[in-house]
């Protein structure tokens, strides 16, 4: 547990982690950014919070009368 570890143990843990990370495979932002954008564009047409929901279909609209369940 981090609270029980001495400073040098924490440093050692961080060092080992850094050694692993320097070697992870990475892709350029110019490739990944358009992919994120394409993903969002594909879905945002269906996103109720982006395009809005007509009042009669919105389950959370303010209701006037009683609800009988």
């Amino acid at each position: 547990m981090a609270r029980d570890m001495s400073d040098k143990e924490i440093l050692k843990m961080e060092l080992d982690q850094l050694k692993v990370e320097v070697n992870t495979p990475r892709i350029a932002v110019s490739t990944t950014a358009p992919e994120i954008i394409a993903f969002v564009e594909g879905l945002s047409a269906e996103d109720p919070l982006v395009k809005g929901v007509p009042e009669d279909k919105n389950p959370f609209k303010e209701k006037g009368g009683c609800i009988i369940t």
Partner: protein
Amino acid sequence: MCDQTFLAITFGPCDNCSQNKPLMNIYLKNEPINYCSLCVELMACQGLAKGETIHTLKAESETLKGKLEEERAKLHDVELHQVAEKIEALGQFVMKTRRTLKGHGNKVLCMDWCRDKRRIVSSSQDGKVIVWDAYTTNKEHAVTMPCTWVMACAYAPSGCAVACGGLDNKCSVYPLSLDKNENLAAKKKSVAMHTNYLSSCSFTNSDMQILTSSGDGTCALWDVESGQLLQSFHGHSADVLSLNLAPSETGNTFVSGGCDKKANVWDMRSGQNVQSFETHESDINSVKYYPSGDAFATGSDDATCRLYDLRADREVAIYSKESIIFGASSVDFSLSGRLLFAGYNDYTINVWDVLKGTRVAILFGHENRVSTVRVSPDGTAFCSGSWDNTLRIWA
């Protein structure tokens, strides 16, 4: 008068060298040990290999960090918002409070939606965990926990149970029964045991496993039925405040954020920390995966939210404004990932355009800090919980 501190010194035989000296009362792995100061020094040096001192370790750590930054910078050829310039800007936002859920006696600390898109579980400082029907605002169940500050609560995927925990250092699962008169507390099952407070919990894809994060700096995966620890995740050097599981299509990973300003991505099966990001300037309060699973967002006490791309292994966007000086306590994405909702300690919720990096709306309404923000599973609304004892549903 209040500033006086008293240092009590115990005097007696040292556990190690047996000489009568003033003792330092220290705790090693939760065991109290009485060593004299000389023996404590000797013990501290023993753990290091020959020639290794804290200095050399720190120096090596710095050079590796520098190298990591270099590698990451090589691939940083363009900014997300630059690529996003050609996209249409979002229209005017009309979002208002549709429901206010009142009933908690004290600050609301956490909430979660059920997969049926209408039920909500929320937990508060007074120890109460309440299950609400968001359409009607009726309370369906209420449980009183034996501890205060219930900081974490989660709905099971089946909708038949809730998990919660906080200062009791445990995560408990309560099966929800349809019989309103049944005493839920009697059926409680203690699943997780940590050595410090529980900050966050989440069911995996089934009701059978729970992932927890704690103030003791670790995350852990537990089997609900037996309470057994299946995997533990060590790597944070301070309290872990938040965790989030990757969306199911993308596999067995989760991200955690903590007081050490780091956000770590873990492999659930091996327990390995696969990626780590340290660009925030203060505690990370909240982490949330992007709907595609290739990125995640964080909200922090440094008043910014940031987006990290997992495949490019770097931060790709910062959502901040000079006028925002209070920390972000909670973040969540809309269904498509176009909007980021962030609750802040200045009582507001800011809505950000994820791709362009601009703010599209500020939502006012809460009368105290916003502690938690979650979008409903079908994306039609989002719920915010606050220290003003209420929850609000916005749509």
